């Protein structure tokens, strides 16, 4: 274990556990649920934090870590749970681990969801495995006295994650699928406006694909409430040193900056993300992004 904590109380930053033991790896619908023993990480983790796992072993051609939202931590057992889809070779490798194998993990990383101190009614919106970090968030909100509704969406029933868990932790759960194979046919944003109004939500939390986040942020804005969106940008380092994971975000001063989603996110205030620029494919950043003018010179 590395990470520079002063003996006794854990330092705030992330830890690197080179040999986190795989305790459990099970199918969970279309996904895989993985439990790692990663001492030190649980007590530092809050909902929305992510971990970054090295994949493929020491002689792997895959150099970069893969990022996964933390699903749950159990400080007593020193475990971290993630839920993942097999997407490419890295996640395929992960899915082939067996209990007793070890994985190199760094975490917790990023900025977690903002959870107000006071009781806050909220809607939590998740696409596919995007629900993974939402259950503990729901528990936190509920513990502070807020009413919590969840909307889980996916392309198809098998790609929903945690519907039963949602029903345990939330006051109200809605399910949507693109193909209607579970819940309502449609998008998570379809029931969202009515749901916000019904429970009088002051906050919307969202985790899922970019298109969904953008739509959720728009709905929240139209209702005059805050959205906390966990984005998923390709990350090379996950710890803030490489500048690959940036997206245009408006700062307190009103200036748009290319902002690192690994350290300043992955959770952003949806109203601050410049979704318009993200959707643009011209290959040129507009002049109102700080420093975009300097790019024009060369």
């Amino acid at each position, binding site marked *: 274990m590395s990470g520079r904590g002063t003996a006794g109380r854990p330092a705030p930053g992330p830890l690197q556990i080179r040999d986190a033991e795989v305790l459990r790896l099970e199918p969970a619908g279309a996904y895989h649920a993985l439990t790692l023993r990663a001492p030190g990480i649980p007590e530092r983790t809050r909902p929305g934090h992510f971990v970054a796992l090295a994949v493929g072993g020491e002689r792997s051609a895959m150099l*970069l870590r893969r990022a996964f939202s933390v699903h749950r931590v159990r400080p007593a057992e020193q475990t971290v749970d993630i839920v993942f889809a097999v997407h490419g070779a890295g996640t395929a490798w992960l899915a082939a681990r067996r209990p007793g194998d070890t994985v190199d993990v760094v975490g917790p990383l990023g900025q977690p969801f903002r959870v107000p101190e006071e009781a806050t009614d909220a809607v939590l919106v998740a696409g596919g495995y995007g629900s993974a970090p939402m259950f503990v968030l729901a528990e936190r909100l509920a513990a502070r006295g807020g009413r919590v509704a969840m909307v889980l969406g996916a392309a198809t029933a098998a790609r929903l994650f945690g519907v039963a868990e949602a029903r345990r932790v939330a006051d109200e759960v809605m399910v949507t699928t693109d193909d209607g194979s579970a819940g309502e046919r449609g998008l998570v944003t379809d029931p969202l406006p009515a749901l916000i109004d019904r429970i009088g939500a002051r906050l919307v939390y969202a985790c899922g694909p970019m298109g969904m986040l953008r739509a959720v942020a728009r709905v929240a804005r139209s209702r005059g409430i805050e959205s906390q969106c966990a984005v998923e940008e390709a990350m*090379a380092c996950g710890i803030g040193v490489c500048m690959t994971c940036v997206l245009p975000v408006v700062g307190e001063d009103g200036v748009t900056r290319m902002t690192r989603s690994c350290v300043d996110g992955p959770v952003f205030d949806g109203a601050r993300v410049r979704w318009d620029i993200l959707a643009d494919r011209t290959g040129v950043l507009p002049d109102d992004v700080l420093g975009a003018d300097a790019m024009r010179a*060369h």
Partner: protein
Amino acid sequence: MGTTLDPGAVDLAVDLAGLRLPNPITTASGCAAAGRELGQFFDVAEIGAVVTKSIMGRPRSGRPTPRMAETPSGMLNSIGLQGPGIDAFLEKDLPWLAAQGARAIVSIAGGTVEEFAELAVRLRGQEPVVALEVNISCPNVANRGQVFACDPGAAADVVAAVRAGADPAVPVFAKLSPDVTDIVAIARACVDAGADGLSLINTLLGMAIDTDTMRPVLANHTGGLSGPAIKPVAVRCVWQVHAALPHVPIIGMGGVRTGLDALELMLAGASAVSVGTAIFNDPSAPVRVLAELRQALAERGIAKAVEVIGLAHRR
């Protein structure tokens, strides 16, 4: 050289054109920001030096995303030198490095010879700055964007201007691109123009196409290839330049992941070694590489790191 030594007894200090570093391991520019984030994983004063992300005069947004693609044993990046500009760097980043007791090798970049020179001047007398690394792998505004590092004349102009502007006590390293027909010619031009040392190598120009979207992965189309994939090119460049200019100190880099990789670059002729992309795989890579290098030297019975510099040329 002979029987195994106690690793603790190995003298790792190296000299880079008069600059004495406690050990030869540094971060590679652009792979460690200005050190602060890595400070969560290890004490940045423990390594030879922190080479900072190339800084330019003004704040820069960098390029649109996607900016990276993983490739076999490597990655492509097209960050476009995103950074806060020299003012913010001097105000926020350098003082942090100074407070840690770290040694900073500041990488500078510019679109014109003047911009490079101004940066060198601004960095005069800044306490933790022990050397400048001149990133000449950037497009020359005056010459249709041709990269300075690809033309001996342009490279020499930049180096001469930086050398003239910089604190005379601070060595200037010119960082070369491997994407040239004759790297020795560029190296010579830089040394003749006043470079005290050379940093080899920057990334190779590469590209990836997404076979699903059938479009380039990177918003900028091409990007810089780094990581273990390019290590053989780095070793070759260091070897060639050290053979031609044996008295010029070299900071070697390109694909270093282990202490043995660092040793390989030193055997080829590097006096110091930067760890870049490997940090993304392992945030404590610089200190791990350092420990592994120490161990490797001890196992080989080598009492001083300086003994292995260029050793493969002499055996």
